[in-house]
């Protein structure tokens, strides 16, 4: 699966690296280095970057033996699992490149090392992203001015039509708001202070004065993370999606780090519609939760709120009793495992692949006290003050105008005889300070063992990406709406819709709005 080492390929790889430099720097400077009194955050982040460097190339190749990056991207439009965003969209290339950059500055590797790995990881990222964002036609959110329209019209219409109207102060508004606050906080705790359990995409235009944002809360139940075993037993759904209609504001920024910004400011009274769903790689798209009636939706929000609150309190007490090494493991695994769901989708998930610290990365753990972790992370992603990140004084970096660059490109000199190494090698054994993972995985088909989950994943193809439908894009629909084939495509999403079931493929957005309660 090695890419050819040609000038054209290297130019593309280095451009993909640079795209991540520009966006990651922007994401970092609009925030501060994240520290926590509970978790040794910068230290675990640094450990995770090494895990990514040593393992991502091999694990992605293993995944692609069963499913291509393009198919993974296509399937990912039909569900909200963590690998999608912020997983592959930001974490995959950047965690890998941060590990590489750190090792270069330690003198442990050269910029000319593991270049087949570098080219492959960046190429995987490109192919997945292009497929995931096929509907909006971009490769990343920043290319689209910090927005992401992942949904096809087929999916957007169902989310639109099935929204229940709400207003500040009413029961639904309060129940939805309370759940999202609890789920956000629980997500931060599950993810050891990182924001990678929650995400948003959109906006999608609903009417002249309203837009829809889709919020995803992921990895909430007993599934991959050992620290959720037991404490999250009562959480019914692993991935929860909340559709939100907002009036009188425009979401001008929906970035890869789960932040959104609106003008005027999105405040509580602007939330005028909500819906609730679950999904994963075993579901036929998004499965409605409590959407039969307004009353059942309120009850479902309240039930889920209670479930996550109870799990959060239990998890907080568990983590407060962890050793530093256990916290370091949990955090590093959370970060490194940001793309683990790719292995679930392909049906090749292995606990040892994703829930353990590769022994090559483990060697560097003794460096990672709080001070060094804080300072080296700050230099690597904020100050860009490592020697490898300094450029000629003529250079002016995007956003800062400083002579710096976050990631080192592959030197083109490898094309004219400079020596290089192709790969860091296969996956090495891993270690963990955490309890053994319980063999329970919460899916949309209930709880199952890993063997059952992998088998089910291998056996299932969602109808929307079955060969007869996969390439029926919105451009095709534009010219074929009303045909049997188009109606059958739309029926895939409409099957569970309370408003659009059997309505076919010819409805306009205005028609859908008219069908709402």
């Amino acid at each position, binding site marked *: 699966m090695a890419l050819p080492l040609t000038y054209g390929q290297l130019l593309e790889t280095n451009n993909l690296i640079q795209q991540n430099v520009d966006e990651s720097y922007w994401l970092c400077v609009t925030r501060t280095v*994240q520290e926590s009194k509970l978790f040794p955050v910068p230290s675990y982040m640094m450990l995770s970057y090494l895990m990514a460097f040593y393992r991502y190339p091999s694990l992605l190749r293993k995944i692609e033996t069963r499913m291509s990056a393009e198919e993974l991207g296509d399937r990912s439009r039909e569900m909200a699992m963590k690998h999608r965003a912020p997983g592959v969209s930001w974490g995959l290339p950047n965690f890998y490149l941060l590990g590489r950059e750190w090792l270069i500055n330690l003198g442990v590797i050269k910029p000319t090392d593991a270049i087949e790995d570098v080219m492959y990881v960046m190429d995987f990222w490109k192919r997945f992203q292009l497929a995931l964002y096929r509907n909006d036609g971009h490769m990343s959110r920043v290319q689209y001015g910090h927005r992401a329209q992942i949904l096809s019209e087929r999916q957007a219409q169902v989310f639109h039509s099935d929204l229940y109207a709400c207003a500040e102060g009413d029961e639904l508004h309060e129940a939805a708001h309370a759940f999202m606050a609890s789920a956000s906080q629980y997500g931060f705790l599950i993810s050891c202070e990182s924001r990678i359990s929650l995400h948003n995409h959109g906006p999608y235009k609903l009417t002249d004065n309203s837009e829809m944002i889709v919020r995803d809360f992921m990895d909430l139940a007993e599934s991959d993370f050992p620290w959720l075993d037991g404490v999250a037993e009562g959480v019914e759904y692993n991935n929860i999606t909340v559709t939100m209609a907002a009036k009188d504001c425009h979401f001008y920024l929906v970035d890869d780090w789960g932040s959104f910004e609106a003008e005027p400011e999105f405040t509580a009274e602007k939330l005028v519609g909500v819906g609730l769903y679950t999904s994963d790689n075993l579901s036929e798209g998004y499965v409605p939760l409590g959407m039969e009636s307004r009353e059942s939706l309120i009850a479902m929000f309240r039930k889920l709120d209670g479930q996550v609150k109870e799990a959060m309190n239990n998890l907080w007490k568990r983590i407060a009793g962890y050793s530093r090494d256990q916290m370091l493991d949990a955090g590093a695994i959370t970060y490194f495992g940001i793309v683990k769901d790719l292995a679930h989708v392909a049906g090749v998930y292995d606990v040892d692949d994703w829930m353990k610290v590769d022994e090559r990365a483990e060697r560097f753990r003794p460096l990672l006290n709080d001070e060094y972790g804080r*300072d080296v992370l700050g230099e690597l992603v904020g100050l860009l003050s490592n020697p490898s990140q300094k450029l000629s004084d003529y250079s002016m970096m995007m956003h800062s105008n400083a002579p710096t660059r976050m990631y080192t490109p592959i030197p083109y000199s490898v094309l004219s005889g400079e020596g290089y190494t192709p790969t860091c*090698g296969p996956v090495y054994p891993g270690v963990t300070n955490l309890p053994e993972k319980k063999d329970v995985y919460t899916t949309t088909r209930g709880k199952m063992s890993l063997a059952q989950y992998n088998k089910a994943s291998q056996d299932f193809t969602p109808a929307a990406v079955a060969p007869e439908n996969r390439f029926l894009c919105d451009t095709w629909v534009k010219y074929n709406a009303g045909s049997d084939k188009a109606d059958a495509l739309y029926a895939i999403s409409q099957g569970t819709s309370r408003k659009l079931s059997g309505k076919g493929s010819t409805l306009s957005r205005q028609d859908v709005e008219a069908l709402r309660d």
Partner: protein
Amino acid sequence: MVKLYVDSDKFGDANASPTVDAFHAAVKEIVRTKLAASGGHWDSFVFDKSYALITAEDMAGVEKMMLDAGHLFDWSAAISPQERPDVYKPIEGVSDADMAKFSFEHEDAVTGPDGNLEQRGQGDNVARYPTDCEGIARYVRSPMQVMKFLEEGVPDNTIAIIDDSGGTLTAPILDQFKGVICAGGSTRSHLGILTREYGVPCLMNAKISGIRQGDTVRFECTADPKTAADYQKNVDRTAKVWRVASAD
């Protein structure tokens, strides 16, 4: 001595952090030594022999080098000095005894009379509310304090004074605060996001001075929120923090 690829660097210079600079110099020296011992052939060293030759014990030696020189490390997670008090600077401003006289002191805090109030600093407002937020200042700086509040309940009218911009330390009790003043982070930090979700007034990146445990404080959550664009463009947009009454 074997020379590393990065030993020749036209544009690179020292790291900004002396700790990082010292650590990296020490690791590079280990790599040089082990590479020389392996025969000096990089290609067979980098992803093969080095895996056995460069060890965790070597890395532990890097930290020991600084400790032997008398350096004690800054800590951020409470668990770190708790497990290795000999390695980290002492924990201060956390115990009940410390709290009686502890206060955050930021050199850029704007202080002085402001009408009939006393300004004690300023911060970045997360979300706008109809009225300013007033309550009793209580520092929340450690998991032990959170556990205490979790078991005994958060006193009514508490404005939490926090220096952890994360969302996990106060996770089980955040929704019980009347307000939050955080001496770090930005409005887009996790604590900022969560307080907005919960509808708890909050200032982030607060630069405050002289606020003691039990003081009655008020902050200007009626001010314009600070946006991502404001941070990017360095727009000066702050909300005031006042002391209404001293606990003394």
